[in-house]
């Protein structure tokens, strides 16, 4: 019995009263058909309450109406998972907007004295009804997900059965109490509509969207200047807000993309086993190279003789690099006459390391600024950036028993002699005592 009243009696009564009441109000209280705007009494909170509420509720309204009026099309759209998810998300977001807006509006009514003078009991009933209704809607949406899809098979037939005057409560009878309450709430709102400020729904000033703009022109020059100044301020504020909004939106998009990249920079790179091994191997090799370099350095600090090469390994076409006592590169050659020649490989121009390939005219090249150095004398070519010759490096030759056979000082004066028959077995050294002399 209660069911029949709630889902058949109440709806018909509500629709009837709504129609009759609206007509009655149009005839008797035409100037009262408005939302009873209180913008003049309080404007700031109104903006933050009214705008979200109206945006939210219009979107939700639209969703409900499409589902009720075009169930076929709606059903087919909602069969696409992406669209269904999109519809649900939009619905949720709009509901939250509505609740926020309503809360602000409610709070505003409660806390602004001058508003309370123009507030009647009807306003509180409407606000409470709407709050409950939106809250119930949110509970339905949260508790019984995908309502956008299931409503077309349950609630839509119920609404249509009412419209076609063959009421059928069989579906709605077994529905959860929250959904039933939401339906009853809808009829109650319809019922009170003609007698409250909700009547403004039927008098939306749509013509405002299309009428030509009105401009207030002041005859009084002072007022006119004030108006112009005010408009300029407003324009520049609008300009700034628009630009600031555009920039922050762009900035937001940008930072989402950029932060995504930056965030991942700090994550541990997930390396493959082999990659990790290769990486470690390279690193180890580099460490070994550094260690070898340090050893060379230590050797030069500790020992009086440094081995360069066997005389047999040297020739006059490709120089052999070695490191001298000051840890700088040197080049070892063997001249045609069989004697070794040691030159510093540090270019006398700007200190680059000279190449070791001897060209046809017996010269080596510093590639940095193209200076050719004669390997016999160390002299640079004419017009080369380098002006000074490469330093000679002193050496000592020893035979296989380790006895000193010959030496050369940094100035190029030789002692000893070279026996061509056994010279190939001689070893070449640089000597600290001779280097220090230089």
């Amino acid at each position, binding site marked *: 019995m209660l069911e029949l009243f709630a889902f058949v009696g109440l709806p018909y009564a509500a629709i009837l009263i709504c129609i009759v009441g609206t007509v009655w109000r149009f005839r008797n209280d035409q100037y009262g058909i408005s939302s009873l705007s209180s913008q003049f009494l309080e404007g700031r909170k109104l903006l933050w309450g009214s705008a979200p509420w109206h945006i939210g509720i219009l979107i939700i309204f639209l969703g409900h109406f499409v589902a009720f009026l075009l169930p076929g099309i709606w059903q087919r759209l909602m069969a696409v998972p992406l669209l269904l998810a999109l519809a649900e998300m939009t619905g949720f977001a709009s509901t939250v907007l509505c609740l926020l807006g309503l809360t602000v509006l409610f709070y505003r009514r409660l806390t602004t004295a001058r508003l309370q003078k123009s507030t009647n009991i009807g306003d509180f009933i409407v606000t409470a009804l709407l709050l409950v209704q939106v809250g119930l809607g949110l509970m339905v949406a949260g508790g019984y997900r995908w309502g956008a899809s299931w409503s077309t098979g349950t609630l839509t037939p119920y609404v249509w059965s009412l419209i076609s005057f063959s009421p059928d409560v069989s579906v709605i009878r077994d529905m959860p109490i929250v959904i039933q309450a939401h339906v009853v709430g809808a009829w109650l709102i319809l019922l009170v509509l003609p007698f409250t400020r909700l009547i403004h729904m039927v008098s939306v000033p749509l013509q405002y969207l299309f009428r030509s703009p009105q401009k207030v022109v002041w005859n009084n020059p002072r007022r006119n200047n004030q108006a112009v100044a005010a408009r300029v301020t407003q324009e520049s504020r609008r300009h700034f807000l628009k*630009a600031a909004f555009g920039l922050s939106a762009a900035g937001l998009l940008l930072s989402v993309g950029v932060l995504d990249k*930056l965030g991942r*920079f700090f994550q541990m790179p997930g390396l493959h086993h082999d990659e990790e091994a290769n990486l470690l191997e390279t690193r180890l090799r*580099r460490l070994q190279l550094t260690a070898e370099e340090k050893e060379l350095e230590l050797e030069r600090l500790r020992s009086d003789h440094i081995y360069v090469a066997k005389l047999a390994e040297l020739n006059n076409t490709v120089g052999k*690099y070695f490191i001298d006592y000051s840890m700088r*590169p040197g080049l070892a050659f063997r001249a045609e006459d069989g004697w070794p020649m040691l030159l510093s490989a540090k270019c006398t121009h700007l*200190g680059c390391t000279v*190449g070791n390939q001897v060209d046809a005219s017996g010269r080596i090249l510093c590639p940095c600024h193209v200076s050719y150095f004669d390997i016999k004398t160390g002299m640079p070519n004419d017009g080369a950036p380098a002006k000074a010759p490469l330093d000679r490096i002193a050496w000592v030759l020893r035979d296989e028993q380790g006895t000193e056979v010959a030496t050369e000082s940094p100035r190029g004066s030789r002692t000893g002699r070279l026996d061509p028959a056994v010279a190939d077995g001689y070893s070449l050294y640089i000597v600290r005592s001779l280097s220090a002399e230089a």
Partner: protein
Amino acid sequence: MKQPLVSTLFDFIASRIPLHKLDVRHMITEKEVPVHRMSWGYYVGGLALFFFIIQVFTGMMLLFYYEPTVSEAHESVEYITHFVTMGALIRNLHAWSASFMIFCVIAHMLSALAMKAFAKPREITWIAGVLLLLITFGFGFTGYLLPWNQIAVNATKVGLASIDQMGQYLPAALSHLAEDVRVTIQGAPAIGQATLSRFFALHVVILPLMVFGVIGLHVLSVQLHGMSPGIEDKPRRKDKFFPIFILKDFKEWGIAFLVLFILSLCLPFDSLFPYPLLEPYNALGSTPDGIKPEWYFYFVYYPMELLPFWIIIVVMTLATLGLFAAPWIFKGTSHKTMRWIASAIAAYMIIMTLFGENIYHAIKG
């Protein structure tokens, strides 16, 4: 009556740093930016600042992975480039943004010169700006070494060796002084770990601290004095600094970031060098071909290759001193002449940067 020196000095500082204008009204709400055909010059300084901010952030990020030792530096850079997620992007951002920043700093300097922006009471702004220019070159020089690859170390070697060159012009008793200076900068007779540690410390701690201080002074005095008029005549129009100019500034920043980001995603900075130059530095091998400094040093590098060294020293010293003293040297110069001078310098820089190598080869064969 002649004023005492101290009070003259205080008067000078008080009029150059008008702290009584240190409030929102003077510095933001009432500040105006003239609109004229040189107005673009007002944006390049902001862009330089923007690229510097990018440098600070990407630099800090690179610090998470970079290891400043001779054995690890190159490997850690390789690791960032090839293994760290988005590591290549961050490194490219740092490298490209460095070049853009230096470009903007130079353009900013030239446009300020052309607009005679150093004129009284903006001398301190200008001097801080010249300091920033030098620090920026310092950043470039020290940062170039950090990847520890062939081109990095060898180019640094060449750059530092030019200090040695100065020794030949000093009296015999002092001729070792130049080498002492170089060794002190290097921290060792040859470039090695000591040099890397020093350059690293300079690049990530000392120079940034200096920049923060000097930028603070620079930007503060720009805000205190407002934009320089830039041209002789009254500008036709003025934009409010806030909100109009600052929004335009941010718009430029947005575009700059887009260009930088796309470039960094698509084109590795390294791709401008042949590979052998990017191998780890080999202390024992010979110097590879094609060692040269970054493009922003070409304007002094190629002349150095072509002319006797003493000319370079004299010209560079005079140029640097001239920059610092510009507010006094060009006190009476007209805006028009300043534009000519700035254009001539710009033309020289552009020609040397773009065609320096061709000129070098044409002359040296």
